[in-house]
């Protein structure tokens, strides 16, 4: 019996359990007797949960354990005596046997596989049956145990609610555990990188040239892993140029939308601004690479700036700034709207004009929220990949000329990890170290931003 069929069987049993238990609990409400503690549905759910959850947990564990048991049994069969010693060849034969048994491959490459097949099939059937029988027994046992506990004063509701809470808790833990897993994988690969290249060189070196010779006789550089030009490129594009565009435009649009726009104008303007946040970044990338970058290059050439490249920090930064506008504007919008109306009235009643009120009261009062929004926007901008891959270039230049080509952390990660790679060279591992730095910086920015925003919210509550 396949695990999928078993799963449906267990769920079917759960359904039966629900109706049976509900029917029993339905009889608890007799006239004259005290009212039962829980409504019949809760009794139904209680029994169903007992029937389904232990059985499914067992099924999951068994599905993990079973293949190992099957292989062990196969290896103990007489046919296994001819197998080569443990190693790659043996593993290949065993996986071929498995493929044959499950029908995912048509015929075996190694004749040994065919001789092992009957033993494997038998073992598989044997353990499959054990698993199925145990699962069904558990389902019945769980259901029966729960069923016997049903009484009018049994607190089925509280127990069901507790299970619901546990399910919700597990759901939220999964996201957290995934984050921890990501950090761990970054961390271990980075440690391997730092075993080859010193962290000091990585964090302070100014030459980035990750190409390394693979064979000893190959002509090629030995590689240089000074990441400062990458960090500079990232900051230059994401935190300087993009923010020069996004902060004023975002703030001004938020002020217009919250203070000056008529409700009817606001109704169509705000969603359109938010659509800007939903445009896939690769589309911004086209726009930056095909429209903005060439235009900037000809502009730079016409005013006589030497070294203008067709891939420039400015092109990527400008387009990224436009992409970030909705983030800044919606955070600023929220913070300005959260400043109490009485503050605005107070200022207007003093004879302040609308713009004085905005400049001297609303924006200062909303400032922490705006700063929080800007920090979140920066953290998003420096993690942004597509626009810079397409428009910023690959040359690791340490330059303040916005018309020159620069490269960023994310661009380099893409470069280092696309295509065929060996995962033991410093070149590939460098990508993880870069990823770790990026992760830590954005994490820090997010924590600071959220703290600032939270503090600000408290001030008005």
């Amino acid at each position, binding site marked *: 019996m396949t695990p999928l069929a078993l799963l449906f069987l267990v769920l079917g049993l759960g359904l039966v359990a629900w109706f049976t238990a509900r029917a029993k609990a339905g009889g608890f409400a007799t006239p004259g007797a005290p009212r039962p503690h829980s409504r019949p549905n809760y009794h139904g759910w209680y029994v169903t949960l007992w029937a389904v959850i232990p059985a499914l947990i067992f099924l999951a564990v068994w599905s993990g354990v079973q293949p190992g048991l099957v292989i062990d049994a196969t290896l103990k069969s007489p046919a296994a005596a001819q197998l080569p010693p443990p190693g790659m060849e043996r593993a290949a034969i065993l996986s071929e046997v498995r493929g044959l048994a499950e029908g995912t491959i048509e015929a075996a490459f190694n004749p040994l596989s065919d001789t092992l097949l009957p033993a494997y099939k038998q073992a598989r059937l044997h353990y499959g049956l054990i698993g199925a029988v145990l699962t069904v027994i558990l389902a019945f046992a769980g259901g029966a145990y729960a069923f016997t506990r049903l009484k009018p004063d049994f607190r089925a509701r509280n127990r069901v609610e507790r299970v619901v809470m546990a399910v919700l808790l597990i759901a939220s833990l999964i996201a957290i555990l995934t984050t921890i897993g990501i950090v761990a994988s970054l961390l271990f690969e980075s440690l391997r990188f730092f075993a080859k290249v010193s962290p000091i060189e990585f964090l302070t070196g100014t030459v980035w040239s990750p190409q390394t010779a693979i064979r000893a006789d190959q002509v090629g550089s030995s590689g240089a892993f000074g990441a400062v030009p990458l960090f500079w490129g990232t900051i230059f594009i994401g935190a300087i140029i993009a923010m020069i565009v996004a902060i004023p435009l975002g703030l001004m649009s938020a002020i217009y939308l919250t203070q000056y726009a*008529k*409700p009817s104008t606001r109704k169509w303007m705000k969603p359109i601004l938010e659509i800007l946040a939903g445009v896939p970044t690769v589309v911004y990338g086209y726009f930056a690479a095909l429209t903005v970058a060439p235009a900037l290059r000809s502009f730079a050439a016409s005013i006589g700036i030497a070294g203008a490249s067709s891939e420039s920090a400015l092109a990527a930064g400008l387009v990224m700034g436009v992409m970030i506008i909705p983030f800044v504007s919606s955070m600023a919008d929220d913070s300005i709207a959260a400043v*109490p109306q*009485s*503050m*605005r*009235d*107070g*200022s*207007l*009643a*003093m*004879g*302040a*004009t609308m713009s*004085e009120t905005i400049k*001297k*009261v609303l924006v*200062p*009062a909303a400032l922490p929220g705006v700063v929080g929004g800007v920090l979140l926007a920066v953290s998003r901008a420096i993690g942004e990949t597509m626009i810079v891959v397409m428009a910023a270039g690959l040359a690791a230049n340490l330059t303040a000329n916005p018309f020159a080509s620069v490269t960023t952390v994310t661009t380099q990660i893409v470069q280092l990890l696309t295509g065929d790679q060996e995962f033991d060279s410093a070149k590939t591992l460098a990508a993880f170290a870069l990823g770790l730095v990026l992760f830590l910086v954005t994490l820090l920015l997010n924590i600071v931003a959220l703290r600032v925003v939270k503090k600000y919210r408290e*001030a008005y509550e």
Partner: protein
Amino acid sequence: MNDDSFGRITGDPNAAPRLTTKMTARGVNVFYGEKQAIKDVSIDVTQEHVTAFIGPSGCGKSTFLRTLNRMNDTVASARVEGEITLDGENIYSSSMDVVQLRARVGMVFQKPNPFPKSIYENVAYGPRIHGLASSKATMDQVVEKSLRRAGLWDEVKDRLHDSGTALSGGQQQRLCIARAIAVDPEVILMDEPCSALDPIATAKIEELIHELRGRYAIVIVTHNMQQAARVSQRTAFFHLGTLVEYGDTSEIFTNPRETRTKDYITGRYG
């Protein structure tokens, strides 16, 4: 001293101290969209008196107060008809600049609303935007004078640079009064200034109103009839958007002409 129907002071001018009419309203209607909030209200506000607006919730007294310095302009759906004058000049005419009007007619709100700035900056806010103080020394004087008049100076003189929002509710409200005084207005409108305060803070504000009387024409909206009786010399009773009765406070509270006024004052409704 007799009153005509507008509450205008008539009679023998020698018999009573001379009174100046500061603001007048004639046939004022206020609409919020389709809904009429104020119906044909005419009233005079005198320089020397504290005028109280009383009436049940939703009777339009706050709405009417806000027409006196055009704060209803900030509500998009509000529309004001009729004539309101300040020293004989129509405040709704196109030649009246709303910024200057509000500098002359200050306002204190129901809930203390100091800006999230220092105490000093709160008071200096108005003089700064109107360019009333040319130097730091003058500004210091203006701030001190305003805080003294608002009865707050002694409590805050050592911490002028602490945040205004860190003060107690009553102190915050007196700070708001100081802030309004700082631009040297002619009229001060108070919209239920004590409704968010405890009795002790309320008593301080009432005392302050007594002290400010005469220097500024004061109009106060209140829910509290004892307060109206304590602080005002003239009382206007509003009901369902109309001005039911307007006269000397002592008259209104002891011998109201209208049954509706009498019913409200004796607590039959409201």
